């Protein structure tokens, strides 16, 4: 059991990172019924911007810059690739998302020359080694779950108790009626992309601190796993995405701890298949309020 502790700590941390990405999938799905395939690549770009920015400017400028650049990217993707397809069949939207994903990867290839960009201790304080429960780990591992939970609480408050949150909930249920209330549907959709990209950027900074480099395909695996987490939790549901992400993060690390590292990725995708067969709406799948 003692040997498992570092893995458990890691699992919670990885879960938090997945959660930050998964929220982006689930928010966008909730409102557009679109799986935003480009989301993992937005996550990767955030990592690249962080690497470049921290190398060339002080950290108190670099972090906001990475966050803002990612948010602008998410916002632009929606305006350019999804907004013109608002009345098109959903399949067109999905294909557009796949196109954007490859476009971003190829642009990143062009800019980086295809060379993975080394991550050199970009945010020093969180890369320090600390000891917890007799295990030594980077400080980022400890910070991640708390930061994730704090951001989720802020987000849930925003959605349940503010005007823009009310507009998001209304638009997610019924576009047309939301418009009749005077809600500007395009601003609401932009807002979901802004929030999703912001959280992905935070997740990206935490995630890549633990990795030696950011490559153009680095967004693929965490993006896919976060997507599985969102489906597992019930796509469209924020608590679902968060719980799903923590469960997947923990399971992966426990499997690694038991010595089956090779199977940890396979487990996640097997879980996806099982959940789709057994409970396609996921743990917290969209509840349907019926007349009682």
């Amino acid at each position, binding site marked *: 059991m003692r040997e498992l502790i570092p893995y458990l700590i890691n699992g919670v941390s990885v879960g938090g990172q997945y959660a930050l990405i998964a929220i982006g999938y689930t928010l966008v799905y909730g409102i557009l019924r679109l799986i935003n395939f480009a989301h993992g690549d937005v996550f990767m770009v955030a990592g690249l911007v962080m690497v470049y920015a921290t190398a060339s400017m002080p950290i108190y400028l670099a972090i906001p810059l990475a966050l803002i650049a990612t948010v602008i990217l998410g916002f632009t993707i929606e305006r350019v690739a999804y907004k013109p397809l608002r009345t098109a069949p959903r399949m067109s939207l999905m294909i557009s998302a796949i196109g954007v994903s490859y476009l971003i990867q190829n642009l990143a290839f062009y800019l980086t020359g295809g060379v993975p960009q080394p991550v050199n201790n970009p945010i020093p304080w969180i890369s320090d080694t600390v000891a917890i429960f007799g295990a030594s780990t980077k400080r980022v591992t400890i910070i991640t779950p708390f930061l994730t939970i704090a951001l989720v609480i802020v987000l849930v408050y925003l959605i349940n108790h503010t005007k823009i949150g009310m507009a998001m909930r209304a638009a997610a249920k*019924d576009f047309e009626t939301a418009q009749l209330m005077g809600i500007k549907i395009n601003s609401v959709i932009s807002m979901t992309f802004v929030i999703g990209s912001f959280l992905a950027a935070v997740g990206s900074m935490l995630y890549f601190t633990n990795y030696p480099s950011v490559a153009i395909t680095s967004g693929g695996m965490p993006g896919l796993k976060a997507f599985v987490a969102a489906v597992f939790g019930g796509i469209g549901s924020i608590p679902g995405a968060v719980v799903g992400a923590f469960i997947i993060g923990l399971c992966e690390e426990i499997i690694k701890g038991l010595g089956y590292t090779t199977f940890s990725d396979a487990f996640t995708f097997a879980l996806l298949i099982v959940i789709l067969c057994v409970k396609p709406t996921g743990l917290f799948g969209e509840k349907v309020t019926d007349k009682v």
Partner: protein
Amino acid sequence: MLKIENLHVAYGGIQALRGISLEVPDGKIVTLIGANGAGKSTTLRTITGLVKAVSGSITWNGEELLGKPIDKIVTTGIALSPEGRRVFPDMTVLENLKIGAYLRKDKAEIEKDIKWVYSLFPRLEERSWQLAGTLSGGEQQMLAVGRALMSRPKLMMLDEPSLGLAPLVVQDIFSIIREINRQGVTVLLIEQNANMALKIADYAYVLETGKITISGSGAELLADERVREAYLGKND
């Protein structure tokens, strides 16, 4: 006053409205009756900006509405209670009312209007914390009307408020519509329940396959032989 002139609307090649003209004078109840698919809902949806027109004009107190975004049209004082109620099922009754006031910033006045809606529909006050999806059909219709009122409309448009409701509930809804009108709100009402609608209407239009065929005061149409035969089901 709302004035529609020679309005043409088409969906994917099908002519839904073929040049209708009508007027809704301030302070009146005007009704538009007609069979399924005659273009009644399309008319209301075009006024709010949900549907784009091919040609014609819709002016509201002299201001052209065609081409304006929906939120601008709502701001000018036009509200629609849509067909099939369309309340937000997983929001509470109170939240549904608040979202009706989405474009307003006068918090104190909004609170007052919530009280006003509750006084019109006491049932909603009892259920203010209940999720709208758990309300009965009649209560949902009340909520849809209340929600539309929360934007403080000068013109209230109602799309089939009696749809699928028990006769007693329909009478309630209609007496509220009359009450709202008495308090100074102009009403444009769409109904298949022509009998009820014509009884409360100051003026009425009959819409048939995208064209207005008959118009007159509510009482005139109630007595009109063609209307009686086609819409009131009386062949005496």
